[in-house]
């Protein structure tokens, strides 16, 4: 089963590459992409450490709720690991 993750609903100042419409949304890891220099430092010419990057797949229903055109359509985006938290599903 694919790993479920939630995008942290943070609003830090400065350059971030997590779209607003995905913050707080839950999706599944579609594939790991490897490590890339963190754009949040790179944007300011700072030496940027490498951070793991993932492609996360969200359902349109998760992002837009009842306003989704088709709830089962999907959206994939690249999100850095430090913006993701694991979603633990508790057994009933």
């Amino acid at each position, binding site marked *: 089963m694919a790993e479920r993750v939630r995008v942290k609903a943070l609003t830090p100042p400065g350059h971030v590459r997590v*779209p607003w*419409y995905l913050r707080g949304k839950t999706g599944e890891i579609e594939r790991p992409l490897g490590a*890339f220099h963190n754009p949040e430092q790179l944007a300011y010419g700072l030496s940027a450490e490498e951070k793991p990057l993932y492609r996360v797949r969200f359902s349109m229903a998760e992002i837009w709720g009842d306003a989704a*055109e088709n709830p089962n*359509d999907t959206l*994939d*985006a*690249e999100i*850095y690991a430090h913006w993701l938290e694991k979603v633990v599903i508790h057994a009933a």
Partner: protein
Amino acid sequence: MPHDHHDHDDYHHEGMSSSGHPYRADNDGPLTYWQRLEIAVRELLVEKSHLTPAQIATQIEVMDARSPANGAAVVARAWIDPVFKAHLLSDASAASREMGFDIGPLNLIAVENTADAHNLIVCTLCSCYPRNLLGLPPDWYKTREYRSRAVREPRAVLREFGLDLAESVTVRVHDSTADMRYMVLPARPEGTEGLSQEQLASLVTRDSMIGTGLPRQP
């Protein structure tokens, strides 16, 4: 100056060209802050011998020479060569380089259209696009309208491009938010069994590799 006077021809409207179209204003206004900054940085790099003007001109020519024809050649080969197609879907950068395209540091992912799924590429944050393979993006790709609506109502956007997808087809939108760039591997049109790789490539449009269109029918 020769154009300072107005002629009083009956059939020339004020401010219109002789063919009846409005004149477009010359773009010779003052430079913007960013244009001045670019010139200053470029001249410094040249003065300090980091770059020559010829190198800069060559790089602009290389970028301008890239076109959707490069991507079309990749798609056409994937249509006729199953081993290459598998390579393209597992590592699109390596597959493109294998075909001889100099794509620089481009991290490319190819996503496949099938009978059940249609892919659409967008960059909501800016204008990320696989330029090193497909050339410069179309102007509409960079507009706020396309960038915001492609993720919110992709089916409505596709209908405006002339593509009315059945509800049974899953739409998969790909937002290029970080280091990867995307191209769509469109489905091979029916009735193209006898065509050569070159003939197939001529069916592959730019929009079919963004996902806002389908390949041409032969």
